[in-house]
């Protein structure tokens, strides 16, 4: 339990730091900006209570907002992300039969499940984020291309991170 909390706090600090001081400056072809910090919400343990999940998502969003000068923007996208996460997990994972507080990581859940999970959640988050930021339809093409390219970039970084911290055989 304490181990899980510590790991998540470290993960939060590291991801926010990377997002704010490294990824914020990346802007491939004027289009793709990765938002890797949502990995924190993705990797919270399965058995987290819904209330805590939403509070954490909201606070993560506000933290990023404070650095990006966009109060509320990332917070609302993160809350949507948390909701989609609850739905996705309730559809694809049986709640029973976990031994030791597993987390939805690449090494535990397998590549196929994690890829679907990451893609679906990233698409929801990024679509909401970019359309809310643009807020009108006049540049719909530009907004959509930003959304698609950024999503690909983010998922790619997530997979790289997942493989980097891959631990073999946690689940028999």
């Amino acid at each position, binding site marked *: 339990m304490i181990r899980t909390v510590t790991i998540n706090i470290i993960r939060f600090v590291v991801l926010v730091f990377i997002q704010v001081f490294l990824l914020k400056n990346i802007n491939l072809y*004027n289009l793709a900006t990765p938002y890797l910090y949502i990995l924190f919400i993705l990797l919270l343990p399965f058995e987290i209570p819904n209330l805590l999940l939403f509070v954490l*998502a909201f606070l993560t969003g506000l933290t990023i907002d404070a650095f990006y*000068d966009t109060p509320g923007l990332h917070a609302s996208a993160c809350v949507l992300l948390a909701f989609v996460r609850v739905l996705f997990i309730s559809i694809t994972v049986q709640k029973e039969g976990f031994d030791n507080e597993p987390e939805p990581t690449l090494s535990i859940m397998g590549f196929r499940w994690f890829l679907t999970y990451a893609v679906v959640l990233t698409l929801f988050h990024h679509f909401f984020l970019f359309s809310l930021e643009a807020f009108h339809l006049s*540049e719909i093409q530009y907004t959509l291309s930003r959304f698609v390219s950024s999503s690909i970039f983010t998922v790619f970084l997530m997979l790289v991170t997942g493989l980097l911290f891959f631990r073999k055989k946690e689940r028999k």
Partner: protein
Amino acid sequence: MRNLLIFITKYNAFFLFVIFEISSLIIYVKYNAFQKATFISSANDVTGNLYSRINGFYDYLSLKDVNDSLARENANLRNQLKSSFYIDTLAKRKVTDTIYKQQYEYITAKVINNSFNRSYNYITINRGSKDGIAVGMGVISSAGIVGKVVNVTPHMANVQSMLNKYSRFSVMLAKNKEIGSIQWTDELDQHKGMLVDVSTNAQPTLGEAVLTSGYSLFPEGIMVGKVSNLHPKDGAVSLNMEVTFAVDFSKLQYVNVVDNKFQNEQDALEALQKKDDQNSNH
């Protein structure tokens, strides 16, 4: 009542989602409309402090560029020294004896946060109301215009960058002094702006300099950029052209805030004029 409670607990995720989503959207709509006048911004203590520390590190990486620009500016200033002019007539000596009243004062500030890849970009600088900065002042760098101050705290200020869809400044073409306004392009390219509403009599040439007109917050004749495309949009009533900004916004380090000493006087005078117009209409 019991059924209602059961219903709510069964679908608690949805209700939590609605509550948090609404509160974050309220924050979003409320604070973004008022130009980020809020504590959740990069001018607050924690994030501001962190940004200035990280900036201290970034500074080392761009020392060379900064040195170059300082050297260039030094040379520029040296050119303007009295000693570098040859005084050949009595009349000219008389002019130098005149006591000018200073109209524009420049306050140097350092950029501690900068964005250039969003639709509405803002810059945070490390000078605030204690250093004499007020909302509405123009901001320039050694290369050209940067934006205007929209938000001030005692030690920091938010600047609405030229790369912001709200930004619009009065400028003129260098050769024939035709007036127009500069704004950002719809393509969100950080190097390109659009000069619009130029009278059709103007005959702009490719590469012609675009300067500030003196009708806006800036002193007259400050560099804005160069004309890089003469016919970006056809079918408009007035001429428009694409301008490449003189300032590289991604490398902004030091800026000067322009304090127009006569701004209050001018505003008061113009307000008086408006009042007179209204009265004569009735």
